[in-house]
């Protein structure tokens, strides 16, 4: 769980980190159904993990709900010397799929907050209508659950680093 403020709205995001291992994929796919935003994460030091993104995207298209928001993440940006995937490659791929792109580092906190805020923004925008309904509602029973956003976060296969920013 994490609380962030976007547009003056306090948003509670629930972050799921799904197992990246291939053998679990049949199961993890089922978890996409409940996600509103998804980070597709590869490891910039692993060409293979980058190649896998296409598979992730097609899985997401197939299993995630309509209107799910996606962001492409190239993680481990701090490991410049081991880089196998160029920044432009990431940008190119993101462009192809119409996604935003960030290179992040869970170790140095690079772009972590930014990418989470951005994805949350996108999710909020996608749910603008419901949100407006909430806002104009005169009742005081604006329950926590109604603003709670859930986000799935399937990580790239080679990505074992855990988020250490919170």
């Amino acid at each position, binding site marked *: 769980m994490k609380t962030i403020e976007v547009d003056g709205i306090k948003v509670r995001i629930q972050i799921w980190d799904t197992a990246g291992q291939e053998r679990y994929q049949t199961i993890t796919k089922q978890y996409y159904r409940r996600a509103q935003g998804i980070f597709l994460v590869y490891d910039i030091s692993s060409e293979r993990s980058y190649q896998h993104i296409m598979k992730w995207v097609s899985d997401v298209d197939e299993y995630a709900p309509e209107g799910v928001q996606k962001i492409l993440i190239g993680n481990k940006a701090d490991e410049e010397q081991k880089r196998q995937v160029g920044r432009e490659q990431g940008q190119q791929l993101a462009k192809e799929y119409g996604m935003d792109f960030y290179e992040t580092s869970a170790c140095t906190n690079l772009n972590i907050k930014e990418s989470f805020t951005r994805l949350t923004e996108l999710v909020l925008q996608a749910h603008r209508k419901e949100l407006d309904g909430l806002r104009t509602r*005169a009742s005081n029973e604006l329950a926590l659950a109604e603003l709670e956003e859930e986000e799935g976060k399937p990580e790239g296969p080679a990505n074992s680093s855990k988020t250490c920013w*919170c």
Partner: protein
Amino acid sequence: MDQSMAIQETLAEGEYCIIAVQGVLCEGDSRQSRLLGLVRHRPKRGGQEHALFLYTHRRMAITGDDVSLDQIVPVSRDFTLEEVSLDGELYVLGSDVTVQLDTAELSLVFQLPFGSHTRTFLQEVARACPGFDPATPDPEFLWLSRYRCTGPEPEPPTPLCWNAPPGTGPRCAGIGGGVSDFDDSRSDKRGLPVDPSSWGQDTPDNLLPRQNKSKCEITDMVRSSTIMVSDKAHILSMQKFGLRDTIVKSRLVQKEEDYTYIQNFRFFVGTYNVNGQSPKEGLRPWLSHGTPAPDVYCVGFQELDLSKEAFFFHDTPKEEEWFKAVSEGLHPDAKYAKVKLIRLVGIMLLLYVKQEHAAHVSEVEAETVGTGIMGRMGNKGGVAIRFQFHNTSICVVNSHLAAHTEEYERRNQDYKDICSRMQFCQIDPGLPPLTISKHDVILWLGDLNYRIEELDVETVKNLIEEKDFQTLYGYDQLKTQMAAKSVFEGFIEGELTFQPTYKYDTGSDDWDTSEKCRAPAWCDRVLWKGKNITQLSYQSHMALKTSDHKPVSSVFDIGVKVVNEERYRKTLEEIVRSLDKMENANIPSVSLSKREFCFQNVKYMQLQVQSFTIRNGQVPCQFEFINKPDEKSYCKQWLNANPSRGFLLPDSAIEIELELFVNKTTATKLNSGEDKIEDILVLHLDRGKDYFLSVSGNYLPSCFGSPIHTLCYMREPILDLPLETIRELTLMPLQTEDDGVQLENPLGIPKELWMMVDYLYQNAIQQEDLFQQPGLRSEFEHIRDCLDTGMIETLSASNHSVAEALLLFLESLPEPVICYSTYHNCLECSGNYIASKQVISTLPTFHQNVFNYLMAFLRELLKKSAKNHLDENILASIFGSLLLRNPAGHQKLDMAEKKKAQEFIHLFLCNSP
């Protein structure tokens, strides 16, 4: 005066006026008084509907004749009645609560009187709003139709009249006319209305709020605030986060020192009993002496108006006269904004702040407590304004306590009554009301009416003449009562260095020369309570001669907690983060000693167990293996987790055993490769995450679970064959001989069957109780391995174990010896040997062979029945249910079927072919 009674008289049966409030309707330049009544109707179809009835009225409505219906606004789904705070640059005289009423059709602005009644009214209206629950039907307001065209006023409809032209629908409250422009333009500014340049002027344009905020933002703000809120309060109350919000707030209070610093502000506190007079002289000598200009003015009056009208109707022209006089008498070096004016009959308190401080004043509330006649009336009592200045809560009380020298105990009581009965609303309606004592700073001023005791008038006057105030102070009732802790406990008063302020002949500095010839007394006082308060001056002002009292003033430096915005934001972020952290720490989490399980060389009917430990973290948790999506059980049939669910206390652990056991049901598919020793278990924590456990391994194919014909084609021991061959043979359809596709010469019967039967024939033909004694589990495994590896010569087991292995073999055949398709035919002709033989001849060759072979063997056994005690009935009952199995789900045979199956076998045992 409860004016809802008057409204009630005008209503129809079934309609009820919940609450009424008298307000001012502001339309452009015009200000008209309206009575607003919230009316409830309960339709027959259930539920309830509300409407706001607006009445014009006589001065004070007592009966239905005093009011006349002007307009009805149904409380529909799009109805809102919200407080709006006016733009910071604007100022509206005397406005206490400005509310804006909006529906789809109209928009009205009202000013309602301050105080708890208005608040209750607004709360009632909020409660009446139907909300957005789609489950509840839209209100229809059919009951209002009777008011529609029969309005009490015969005049033509005014633009804001209920008598709307047709076509606007029953829910239409009227035509917007000139006011529809209000819709998207609201005032949104937090902080205080300030406009020093427009004192005392009505500027109607002020009510036309600015155009730069969308409606929803304002709704948000209005909903979350009371009157005006500063930035911080605004952020916090923006969205309702329930408990979490409360925690954040209390943490913020705890950590206040981290993000605030003390800054001194100059407070002017003044009190003046004006004896019912109007202002006749400028108040500057009292209010604006010395420099610099105070940051805050707290100015209190008593006996503002002594008339009966003021007492009974609570209305007096003096209010505005003195308000103006004060406003004009404020320090000329600064511009001030009025924060609040509150009055109870003759007791009035005014609060001003320097214009630049207005944005830092929030949560302003004012209340009154009457302690006069009957202990309730307003001729005596107190009024108070509480507010938040930066981060310090301040309460200013102006009281007029009971008069007369001997009544000091009454005064003490008045003080206590004011303290206990003065209660302020809080922003959060869930919180209990605030009392005076709950403030960081309390400033108490007023005509406290304590006198000088024991001394006669002359002595008092002499002491005053000698300026021996210290001696005189020794006889002051307030001093002695405070010393006795009977009143004003914890309060401090500065040294009295000025002569008593009461009682003078009006217009002079002469002591009272009237008949009563009252002894001089320090009636008018200023006390304080709280930290970081320094009194800079405490004096009377002889220059003012309007009243029989002299005004008193005290100037303070008060250390106020000022928020460092950056540090505040940081603290808030830290708190939110720590709450998140706490919440995350409260999500159950466990560690698993192992997540991957490999079961090697799994054999038929041989249990393999692997265990792992679930070690719990700090949160009690419930765990359970859950079904994967679209699956009926949490794992494959050959697997079992024990226990598969449970509860763990913090820091405790539990061992879970994964039991793998392949039986006749699961063996065939493992032989054929249709199934594999592969599975994923999902261990789910209630409110927590899911863990995946992977199970892998390999199965050693066995003759057990293999079909008869498959085994017939296996000339080699099954374990010597490549898996691929086993797979193909297992999947091979049964009746291949009809297809003419013959694999290399098959065996007549499965060699494994022959091995067991032959073994029994050789060793056990005379064995007593054969097939009736259980074998040994360990010997079964040995027999299975011998059969599967073809090393029959090494077989050494008890006869009973081999006999049982034979039965298990027959039981594990996926297709029984009498094929499922032939089952019913067999039952039908049981008792008829010829017909039975006929049916057997329809079986596939391998099955025929096996059947005949077994029957021959059993008949051999019966020949030795003297030794082995077997008879046809025993064997028929054992083999009947193995050879003939009901195709309907392998269920147990019912008694009749069982009997027929036995009879069927019985015939073959009795008759040699």
